[in-house]
């Protein structure tokens, strides 16, 4: 049985997702001892990151690079607000259309699909391999700043279904996983209809929504019908937070924004646990510091 990680990385005008993915791939190799990491990207992103970081840096980070073409109409229409703390916000294209192709693009029998900004600082995801569950993803998450609770991240709608996080997904090549990703594609291609039924907010296409709808449908239209990953929660920070420094291997010191004092922060040291860092600029800023601790 082959096993490996899969990351999607499409740059936009400001965010070098491929660089984030490359740093993360090196963290995966170091912490999970898995050298099979596939990245799905496009030629523009590849050329840009190679020009800024060097081709060797990119090719050495991944065992396999899959190139896809971007849908330019979708790219122009799917625009979201990215924040670099509460002080800076920018509207930029958010290209996430092809994540539902993960099943077809993954060369592995067992795959862990992760976001480029889900930093692997431990080996905890190794507990997924050879699991009895063929497909796992989380609905439970924990903000590092425990006082901060956003109910809109728990359900698609206040009276709607539970929201699953497509940030980390484990799947085996099997009939169920194939059907799951086909259902996600179906939801993506019929967004308006499913938005009317499931009533998620806004016009932005998010994989969390389409994966949650697929989980609801294929979980037998039951709440939380798909099993979670074998970890207590997905830990996350927000794009209103920042990174202070990388004090040593697998440790990050964060600035966490206070919930009732926007733009004001408390410091915390996070260590030896994977974490979703939503402020992409912050990761890019400290990526060279992070690289210092990757052997």
């Amino acid at each position, binding site marked *: 049985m082959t096993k490996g990680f899969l990351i999607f990385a499409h740059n936009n005008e400001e965010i070098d997702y491929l660089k984030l993915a490359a740093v993360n791939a090196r963290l995966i190799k170091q912490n999970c001892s898995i050298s099979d990491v596939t990245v799905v990207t496009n030629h523009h992103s590849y050329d840009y990151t190679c020009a800024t970081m060097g081709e060797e840096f990119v090719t050495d980070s991944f065992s396999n690079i899959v190139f896809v073409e971007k849908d330019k109409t979708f790219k122009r229409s799917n625009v979201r607000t990215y924040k670099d703390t509460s002080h800076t916000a920018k509207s930029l294209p958010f290209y996430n259309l092809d994540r539902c192709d993960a099943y077809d693009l993954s060369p592995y029998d067992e795959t862990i699909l992760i976001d480029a900004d889900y930093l692997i600082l431990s080996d905890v995801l190794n507990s997924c391999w050879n*699991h*009895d569950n063929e497909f796992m993803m989380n609905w439970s998450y924990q903000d590092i700043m425990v006082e901060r609770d956003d109910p809109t991240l728990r359900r698609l709608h206040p009276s709607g279904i539970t929201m699953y996080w497509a940030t980390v997904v484990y799947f085996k090549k099997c009939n169920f996983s194939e059907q799951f990703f086909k259902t996600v594609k179906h939801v993506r291609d019929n967004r308006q209809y499913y938005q009317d039924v499931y009533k998620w907010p806004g016009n932005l296409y998010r994989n969390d929504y389409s994966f949650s709808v697929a989980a609801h449908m294929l979980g037998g239209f039951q709440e939380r019908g798909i099993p979670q990953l074998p970890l*207590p929660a997905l830990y996350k920070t927000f794009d209103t937070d920042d990174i202070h420094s990388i004090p040593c291997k697998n440790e990050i010191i964060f600035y966490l924004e206070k919930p009732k004092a926007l733009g004001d922060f408390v410091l915390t*040291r996070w*260590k030896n646990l994977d974490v979703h860092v939503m402020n992409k600029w912050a990761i890019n800023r400290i990526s060279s510091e992070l690289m210092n601790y990757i052997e």
Partner: protein
Amino acid sequence: MSNKLTKALEFANYRSSLNIQHNNMKARVQTLLSYSTNGGTFIISHELISFVKLLVDREMPDAVLLDVYNNPIQIENLDTFLEELISRYFEATNEYFADYSKLKKSRKVHKLIDIDDD
């Protein structure tokens, strides 16, 4: 701002940082106490350790246990499984104890985070 108020705000900041730092440790220990084997996942608890010890005392070589997903998992060698549970339990709690002891003694934010105060 009066001196009293400045001190009160500093203390509030310290308490907030302490709380977050303590929660980070709890997250770490919870993760370490999750143990996946034979296709299943177990939370290492006092209850699980006692139950497996009971099975070992009854000289059962193997058993089917329910994991956190309520899936039946065949455990081939209960002696080895018990050893693994105990070893992982103390690895987690000893790390927690070391970090928590340090945290308890820290009375300033920079000491909680363990960074230079400059």
